[in-house]
């Protein structure tokens, strides 16, 4: 299984770089992943999306539908897409420490 080394720890990922251990996540790790994707400094709006994704996943064990993400963050899809240019899955969910989203969006 692929791994990434972060702050002296070994963190397992899937083949596409999605973190396998939900509890291994931290804001610092999100920033580290953002740096690797040339996203620059994460803003409060980035973090608002990431924390919402994590809270939803904690409750439901899956990523939220896009319309729910937009509604609960009060962000349009266009804005979320601007925040995470790789898209809601490879961009937002990966930085939030969620497994790769499956099924219907």
């Amino acid at each position: 299984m692929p791994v990434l080394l972060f702050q002296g720890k070994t963190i397992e990922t899937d083949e596409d770089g999605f973190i396998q251990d939900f509890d291994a996540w931290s804001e610092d790790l999100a920033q580290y992943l953002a740096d690797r994707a040339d996203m620059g400094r994460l803003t409060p709006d980035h973090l608002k999306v990431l924390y919402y994704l994590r809270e939803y996943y904690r409750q439901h064990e899956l990523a939220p539908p896009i319309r729910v993400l937009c509604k609960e963050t009060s962000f349009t899809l266009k804005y979320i897409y601007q925040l995470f240019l790789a898209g809601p899955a490879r961009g937002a969910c990966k930085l939030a420490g969620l497994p790769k989203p499956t099924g219907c969006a």
Partner: protein
Amino acid sequence: MYYFDNAATTFPKPESVYRAMDQFFRTSAGNPGRGTHRLALAAGEVIDETRQLLARLFHAPDPVRVIFTASTTDALNLALHGLLKPGDHVVTSSMEHNAVVRPLCALEEQGVMVTCVPCAADGSLNPEEVLAAMRPETRLVVIIHASNVTGTILPIEAIGAQVRQRDALLLVDAAQTAGVLPIDVQAMNIDLLAFPGHKGLFGAPGTGGLVVGERAHLHPIRQGGTGTHSEQEKQPTELPEGFETGTLNSVGIAGLGAGVRFVLEQGVEQIHAHESAVMRRLLDGLSTIPGLTIYGPADIERQVGVVSVCLANWEPMDVGVALDQDYDIAVRTGLHCAPAAHRTIGTFPTGTVRLSPGYFTTFEDVERVITALDYLALHWQRGLPKLN
């Protein structure tokens, strides 16, 4: 908007459909079959006309054998729950939509036995394997006419003749083929045909139907007002009213009638020819995109206007968002409510990007989606300008 989601619902609709619904709602929207005043009779006439048009389109033996439902899913539930009893055996395929998979799963818990015949990785089905799976107690074979994931056309005619010889019934899910491929329920030995109103027939969402052949003896699965036999408490079983409990979606059915009339005027063959021509160009273009995998037969002789793809370095969901946000292109991503089909073609659980052109798709639309996917494939890190 460049619309490539016709497998979910067709868009736009013919102008005549919009006009028919508007006019019906303003001038004829009484409760059909529920009174003797002019508005009720006018609504009933539109319902009857639509029923006759559908019977003509599908070569049903009698218009009363066309039951209106809320959707294909609703029609499939009526067919499966209205027919099968504990101890019955059913044969189905691994390319089915959840509209078949989930009712069968529920029926299995009630004692119905189900055999699922595996399809090939391109979604194709060997009819001999269906026949080999049949048993003396097989009551029904239920097969999707064309996959909503890969577009693969399944061999209904070959299966139909054999099923009839063995005295079982054939139920066909025509969600992707009604209005797109010629369907003759009598010549094809189809005993039950479930179809949508809002896809290839260009009607409104909330409409669909079930054509019931003379060999199929269904029991109503819902009870209530039918506008007939109101003196008796027991549910009537006459076709079609006994199976159309509650007020029909008359506005939607008025639109469906206009849609079916449009299909009959254009001709199913012409509609299919256009969709095939567009698909041929789409498949040719997709095959040139680096890192793009096509799922399904990639052969217009063997599929309807539906194809699934995956793009290297992209999640399907992200492709859908990028196409929508950057290129104004509508596609469907994920599992398409058909996890069994995705297991069959090897794309479970993340799914695919599904492209489904329709009768109103132009070659310019196709060029747009090919160019957009080519951009995403080559410039996925967004280093270069986007398509305008």
